[in-house]
């Protein structure tokens, strides 16, 4: 199958005065049509920056991103506007990402206005109502303001906005982290239904590994701007290759006291180091129990270690 999105060596660096912050430092991966690609990692690992760079909310420092065979990073402003219709984003915080002074109708129709995607006033209104119904809201919600809604409902409004232009690809940046568990399941189920209905492709960014495993077909694990491991979801969780992935998985508590008591945990010492002027070598070396000399000198290559299973580690053969 042809990938929908091909990222090649994407980099996003920020000059922060005291040095160069390498938030994303050379990511390469493919996303296939209709799949959900999960991206996980701890805070500060660069997963949100990666998401934003991929839909070109940030201009990349380096790299290429192919969408339908075209390099998106080479497009002019005008050409980019066209492509934007196919790329949408759902943001983490449903409290901060909706303008409090706009009604739901205005919020949902904003993308339609920008791209002149309706014939007349009635067509616009019909489209808004159709979108609201799609995400489980209804016509009477259209005239209300965001503060009148709960977190879960607000996230639905955000999803309706993202769907307005019939996109092909949606980056969902921690779309459920701000919601209660019972509401999380509602939103995840909605995202899955919409995917089946419209053949959407998702990039699902999250730090909740159990939820990512549940929703994603393939999962990538990031650490300090580098992709450490990438594999089909079941494979990654059952046979993790990278020591970081192993530690990350063993840190998740399982809601079953019996299993939890008998589990052996790999404890990581310390915190994630600073991404400002990172040292050469493997990014994980300071916290890795299996680190050897070569890990300190050379950055391991991200390569296919098993069929469809990629990892960047000197110790994995």
């Amino acid at each position, binding site marked *: 199958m042809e990938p929908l999105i091909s990222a090649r060596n994407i980099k996003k660096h920020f000059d922060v005065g005291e040095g160069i912050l390498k938030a994303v430092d050379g990511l390469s991966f493919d996303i296939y049509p209709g799949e959900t690609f999960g991206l996980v990692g701890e805070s500060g690992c660069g997963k949100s920056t990666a998401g934003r760079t991929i839909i070109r909310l940030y201009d990349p420092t380096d790299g290429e991103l192919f969408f339908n065979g075209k390099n998106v990073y080479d497009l002019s402003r005008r050409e980019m506007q066209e492509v934007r219709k196919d790329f949408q984003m759902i943001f983490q915080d449903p409290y901060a990402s909706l303008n409090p002074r706009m009604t739901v109708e205005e919020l949902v129709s904003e993308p339609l206005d920008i791209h002149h995607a309706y014939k007349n006033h009635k067509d616009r209104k019909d489209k808004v109502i159709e979108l609201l119904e799609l995400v489980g809201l209804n016509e009477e919600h259209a005239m209300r303001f965001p503060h009148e809604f709960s977190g879960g409902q607000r996230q639905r409004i955000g999803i309706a906005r993202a769907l307005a232009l019939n996109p092909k690809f949606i980056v969902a940046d921690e779309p459920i982290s701000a919601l209660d568990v019972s509401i999380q*399941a509602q939103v995840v189920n909605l995202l899955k239904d919409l995917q089946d209905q419209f053949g959407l492709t998702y990039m699902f960014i999250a730090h909740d590994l159990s939820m990512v495993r549940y929703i994603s077909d393939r999962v990538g694990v990031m650490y300090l701007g580098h992709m450490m491991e990438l594999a089909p979801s079941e494979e990654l969780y059952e046979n993790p290759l990278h020591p970081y992935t192993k530690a*990350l998985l063993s*840190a998740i508590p399982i809601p079953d006291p019996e299993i939890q008591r008998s589990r052996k945990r790999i404890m990581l010492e310390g*915190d994630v180091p600073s991404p400002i002027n990172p040292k050469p070598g493997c990014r994980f070396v300071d916290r890795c129990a299996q680190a050897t000399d070569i890990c300190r000198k050379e950055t391991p290559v991200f390569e296919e270690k098993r069929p469809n299973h990629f990892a960047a580690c000197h110790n994995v053969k």
Partner: protein
Amino acid sequence: MEKLLEVKNLSVSFKTFFGEVEAVRNINFHVGKSETVAIVGESGCGKSVTANSIMQLLPMPPAFFKSGEIIFNGENLLKKTNKEMQSIRGNEISMVFQDPMTSLNPTMKIGKQIVEGLVKHRKLSSSEAKEKAIEMLNLVAVPQPEKRVNQYPHEFSGGMRQRVMIALAMVSNPRLLIADEPTTALDVTVQAQILELMKEIQKKLDMSIILITHDLGVVAEMSDRVIVMYAGQILEEGTSDEIFTDPKHPYTKKLLSSVPRLDMSRNEPLFSIEGTPPDLYIPPKGCSFYDRCDNAMKICKDNMPDFDRHNNTHRSRCWLNHSMAQSTEGSEV
């Protein structure tokens, strides 16, 4: 087991412009010595109000106690004066808050913050105080404590700040620690470190913990007993094993099946609880879970059931426990 804390018929309300919000409605529970009790529930269910009531940290007004007693060590905390409470707070009962970024004073050195309470209560000399601060940082495994005591909060990472918060709470050897979402703001690998640390310190100092969280994984790892709260009421209470392997209340069952687990297949459906919790301005007359319950019956609408005891430790309040209710075995909950 000896009871350290007992909460009896506690009701807490808030007076607002629109009317009274009944945040906690007539709850009863106890915490035994060196036991960990988890209170779980969604936001707005009253778990933090319960914790803050024990510490009496609620702003009054608008908050007020409608009824109840909080018996700690044989004495009713609600009868204490402000001054008496001050000597209990941070001394016998300590609290760890959710957000280590905002609950430390940014303009004060870490070491000074840790011993601030002790210096006040026990009149330590400055060299003694510093020694104590270093000892506490050692206890919570902060590397290079001699150097760290002289640093400010912004020089610490999130996980390290949470360790400082724990050190701060432990400094006077409290008998009860209330941890309100202590690891919610942290990454999983750091969360694992903090939970391990809390368990270790609990063993060393022989204290009780009330753990408030919405993360059922953390509950399974830490707690001896679990209290499930919803809309200001307790719906179910039991040992950790009872709650996770044999939940009785439909809400508990749904809560457990709405989180994906690492050890479950991706093809298993994820249950969601439709709707949202009720508004506590006008709490429902009957069962508060009525609107969202699949097994709701006529009687549930207007009548809140009493607790049924399944055994010595396990109780729940649901009309399905009643002998006249139809069996729900085999139905999908």
